[in-house]
């Protein structure tokens, strides 16, 4: 069962956060192990497995990027595992320049500016995904998702860098 089906939702790139929460809470009310205290062990084990599967589905679909990657997988677009070499020279160039800029940013404000830029980039790339899926342009979807994944990682690095800068200041 795919994650959308598990939560009783139509498989789609866009998902209303409130409807995802509603579906998840309703099913957890049914399957959460707290509802099976005092029941026979096999029922408890079954509930645990169901609740864990619901958590997995919820977590995957909650974040727009991981939802897009998962949805792409359902459509037959596979991405290399995390940490694998980037095979897109344009993206590599972008990544190297951004890292350089981040390394040279000496103030929290400078880091914030870079982080804001990458967030905007993410927003733009995410909203552009819909039309790529409509055209079923698999190479373009793959390229866009790899870039999104990189931007996401960059945002995380910017956050770490910011924390470091603040710690040095404090």
């Amino acid at each position: 069962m795919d994650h959308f089906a598990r939560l009783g939702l139509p498989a789609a790139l866009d998902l209303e956060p409130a409807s995802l929460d509603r579906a998840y809470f309703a099913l957890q009310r049914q399957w959460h192990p707290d509802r099976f205290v005092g029941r026979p062990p096999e029922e408890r084990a079954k509930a645990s497995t169901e609740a864990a599967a619901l958590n997995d589905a919820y977590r995957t679909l909650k974040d727009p990027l991981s939802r897009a990657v998962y949805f792409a997988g359902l459509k037959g677009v596979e991405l290399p595992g995390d940490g694998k070499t980037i095979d897109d020279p344009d993206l590599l160039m972008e990544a190297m320049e951004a890292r350089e800029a981040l390394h040279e940013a000496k103030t929290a404000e400078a880091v914030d500016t870079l982080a804001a830029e990458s967030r905007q980039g993410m927003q733009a790339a995410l909203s552009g995904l819909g039309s790529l899926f409509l055209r079923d342009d698999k190479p373009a979807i793959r390229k866009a998702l790899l870039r999104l994944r990189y931007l996401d990682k960059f945002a995380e690095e910017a956050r770490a860098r910011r924390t470091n800068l603040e710690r040095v200041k404090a």
Partner: protein
Amino acid sequence: MSLLEIHEPGETPLPHAGEGSLAVGIDLGTTNSVVAIAREGVPAALHDETGKALVPSVVAYPQAGGVLVGDAARQLMADESRNVVASIKRLMGRGAADLHAVAGVLPYEIEPGTGQTDMVKLRIGGKARSPVEISAEILKALRKRAEAALDKPVERAVITVPAYFDDAARTATRDAARVAGLEVLRLVNEPTAAALAYGLDKGSEGLYAVYDLGGGTFDFSLLRLEKGVFQVLATGGDTALGGDDFDRAIAERMLAERKQDGLADQVDEAAVKTALALGRHMKEQLSDRDQTSGRLEIAGVPSFHALLRTEFEAMIAAYIARTLDIARHVLADAGMTAPDMQGVVLVGGSTRLPLVREKVAEMIGKPPLTDIDPDEVVALGAALQAEALTGGGDTLLLDVTPLSLGLETMGGIVEKVVPRNTPIPVQLAQEFTTYQDGQTAMAIHVVQGERLARFELLGIPPMTAGAARIRVSFAVDADGLLTVSADERTTGVAQRIEVKPSYGLSHEDMADMLYDSLENAEADMTQRLLTEARVEARRSLLALDAALAKDGGLLAAEERAALDAGRTRLEAAMAGDSRDEINAAAEALETLSKPFAERRMDRGIREALSGLSLGELESRVGE
């Protein structure tokens, strides 16, 4: 499907709580414990004959025989200090290797377990006793109090634990309950229990933060409350930071003042305990006064000590700053900022300190909620959950795992399998294979926080290297307990292994620290930070070694020499005691190795792109 009957909320067909044994909520605290019961959604703490709800978490094994718990045990502190133990929670699930976290705080004779994997034991009342059995005495006393107050047998309980407790500490807590004859319905995280008590009482909705600073532990959690759902979004903490540290700061100051006055004290276990007790008393007084004073008597020699609130606040400022640091991280983890919070709940006796209230209000930008007694709120929430679990209830608690789970693969690289703040229960599997022909066993290292647990997989059917498909499954249940199981998928040999934590990090000098408790005490915090810096540095050295082993050929001889020199400098710094030097050397090495890292990345790309036809490139899309 007749195996599973699904019932509407509120109609769970369990024997009603009114018949037979009752289920209570227990807050097993570092300094104080509380037992409470809820009836029809109204929780109440259970009091003793004098009307007190708090049971000091102190256990005594008096010379005269028997066991005392609570106030009676505390009264023996002065006369029979060697037979009295307090703050045992700090040692739950702790092994010899992580004693540094409590060195100086607990003035006890500690016997490290016989092996690295064993929990430590204390020599109390002339006998080695484990934290589990000592905690069980507290639970037994709470159970007795509940049975006396309710006039019914009490055999089931919801017990709270710090959200940041790891698997070993949770397991130890559950074991203690078993020893006390209590079935644990659920281990609930303390901040979550507190939110439950607030949420049900006040019908609050929205995003809330819980700042829980107890006697020995700190937790910070973010929750979303919505129509009976308590969804924990993120949590973080420190299981060795709390009010005990503040008492110790005052005690140290008084002992130092005596020394200045030329008193040659023999600072033994009894003296430390007396100074700590006075320190706690003075701290409590400073919650609603600007100054206080105390009389400390050691070996019949008295001394008088004055303390201003401003002085005390300066002494504990670093601890409070650390809690706020953790809180900021938790907010960032959840992608939230302080203004998103509807409110912040204060939990734990240490939040009575005005400085704590002020700083938390400043950070969140709202006055904290304090209308439920911060000492009782956790037990009240636990009682509500105990009622919900036995009588059926409509609330739903969705909690998360506080620590990331990772797998250590060859070369010391840790691969995250369950990131922190993943909703529990969680189950997942990963596949491994053998690397030698005929291999029948393999070891798997699971890392939780800074702890390492080692699992041996035995009985793998002999095959050629790489042919076996070993699926290792990890499960964290609703109690936050970890189970690891494995099976070989081609033959289906399955074996289930309970987690036996072992401690792989080398804290060589930690055991020594225990015995000179007070001298080293003020260095405790510094020591902890130093240890963290060393561990971090060791990790980056391991990563560098792995990279050099693989791609060392990318470096010219002089570059390699420069890297080796940087490496040597870092190792020298790690051997020293300066955290700043270690961090500086680590940073320098990182800068030195940056061109190397970039070259490795370039080479990776060239390898990926070179010598491949377009068709092969396309097929890589599918990898």
